[in-house]
């Protein structure tokens, strides 16, 4: 909790700093809004050609898309610049942070905090709200929905932090991590039934993004799993989130202990 407060204080300072360059601030905001807007137009064009995707109707796909997109936007806002940790290592900024009495991860996550995902956040929220009107709500479904967003955010958070740690060991092969982080984020935009069974197994046990939206949404939509996985999976998102974040923190600790700084 204490760390959360520090996080907010650092983040706030960064927002103020960004305001020092209003032109860049506005251009970046417009640019990111544009990315999100065009992303949405793409989705709309796709559905102009379809009535359903792998047996999922538009509002069902919208539920999948909206929930994953919201979780990703939240996680991405929270971690700010974890992905750029390699730059921090090279410039010695990480050394500086290590001499401050705030856990390193809190500092890195708050550093260069920006609201660039605001556009995506809004868009995801709107899509989700619309898709939500088709869900037959029960108290348990509402609970699953809330836990889905929270767990999804944590799963993405864990994936981004965990895979960014690659940079503690190598600064060359960092793109490798994108396959799992952004790749994981991309698959969640579709019903996972478009993939073969082996891919689903991978997305459940290796890069557990299936828990971000697929399993809980099956429950919200009252659908049976085309793959016939156990019903328990639909409620297992919090567990998956815990495991992912736990593993990520472990990798992070190992990375920090392995950290070799830079000469000079």
């Amino acid at each position, binding site marked *: 909790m204490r760390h959360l407060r520090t996080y907010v204080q650092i983040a706030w300072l960064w927002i103020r700093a960004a305001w020092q*360059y209003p*032109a*860049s601030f*506005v*251009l*970046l905001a*417009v*640019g*990111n809004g*544009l*990315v999100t807007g*065009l*992303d949405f*137009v*793409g989705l709309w*064009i*796709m559905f*102009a*050609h*379809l*009535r*359903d*995707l*792998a047996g999922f109707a538009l509002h069902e796909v919208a539920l999948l898309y909206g929930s994953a997109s919201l979780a990703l936007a939240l996680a991405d806002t929270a971690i700010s610049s974890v992905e750029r940790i390699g730059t921090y290592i090279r410039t010695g900024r990480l050394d500086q942070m290590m001499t401050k009495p705030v856990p390193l991860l809190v500092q890195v996550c708050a550093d260069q905090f920006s609201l660039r995902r605001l556009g995506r956040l809004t868009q995801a929220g709107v899509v989700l709200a619309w898709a939500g009107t088709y869900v037959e709500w029960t108290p348990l479904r509402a609970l699953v929905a809330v836990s889905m967003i929270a767990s999804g955010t944590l799963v993405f958070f864990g994936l981004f932090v965990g895979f960014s740690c690659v940079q503690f060991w*190598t600064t*060359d*092969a*960092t*793109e*490798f991590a*994108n*396959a799992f982080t952004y*790749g994981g984020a*991309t*698959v969640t935009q*579709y*019903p996972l039934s*478009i*993939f*073969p069974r082996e*891919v689903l197994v991978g997305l459940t046990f290796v890069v557990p993004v299936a828990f971000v939206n697929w399993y809980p949404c099956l429950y919200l939509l009252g659908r049976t799993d085309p793959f016939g996985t156990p019903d328990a999976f639909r409620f297992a998102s919090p567990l998956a989130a815990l495991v992912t974040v736990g593993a990520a923190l472990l990798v992070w600790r190992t990375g920090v202990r392995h950290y070799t700084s830079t000469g000079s």
Partner: protein
Amino acid sequence: MLHVAVASRAFRRYSTYRAATVAGIFTNSVFGVIYSYAYLALWRANPSAGGYDSQDAVTYVWLGQALLMTIALWGGGATDDLAERIRTGDVAIDLYRPVGLVGWYLASDLGRAAYHLLTRGLAPTLIGLIAFRIALPSSPVTALAFGVSVVLAVVVSFAIRFLVASTAFWLLDQSGVKVMSGAFAIFFSGMMLPLVLFPGWLGTLALGLPWASYVQVPADIWLGRHSGADLASALAFQVLWAVVLLAACHGVLRLATRKVVVQGG
């Protein structure tokens, strides 16, 4: 001769990052697999969307992954060096050199593109061929035309990136413009969705903008959707944009030179 040397130096410079190349190929391939399944599902639901069949669609996916780095869709490449030199003011030295700045950076970017085509272009194509049986060009003429089209794609993309980098002469920092330009590039190149799926006026607009030369035009040539006079006009479309945009680069550079001279660098 000088330009060949510049290009081959850029080629060698990129070829030193071997681990990065392997990691990039891996990532391109993962995305290729993801989008292949997505497109297969899409074309299963609508088997003739945009006039493609499902094999065309999957081929399109892998060609897109193969061209992603070659055309530097996200920006970057030689023009990032330019933006940096503008920011630091070193560009003043370049402007007084007897060698044309545009030609110099174009040569360098072509060297980079050649490296990316041979590695991050070829490898995903092979993987797509093995894993998803993507279509191959039906004749040597098609293959040759595809090669020409890719070179033109790089030139068009270079010219746009050069213009974006030149904004640094006035804004000092290209990053905001770069994000915007990247957003347009991804959408209008056909990287996000084939432009043939775009409905009505949006489709007409998209197919007329320079970004169409990035992915859509080369892919359609590869898929054999252009032949004869149609093929010639597809290539002419790219040439036209290349000429117009390169001329714009020269124009902007002249304005910038005047500005730098007036401000004393």
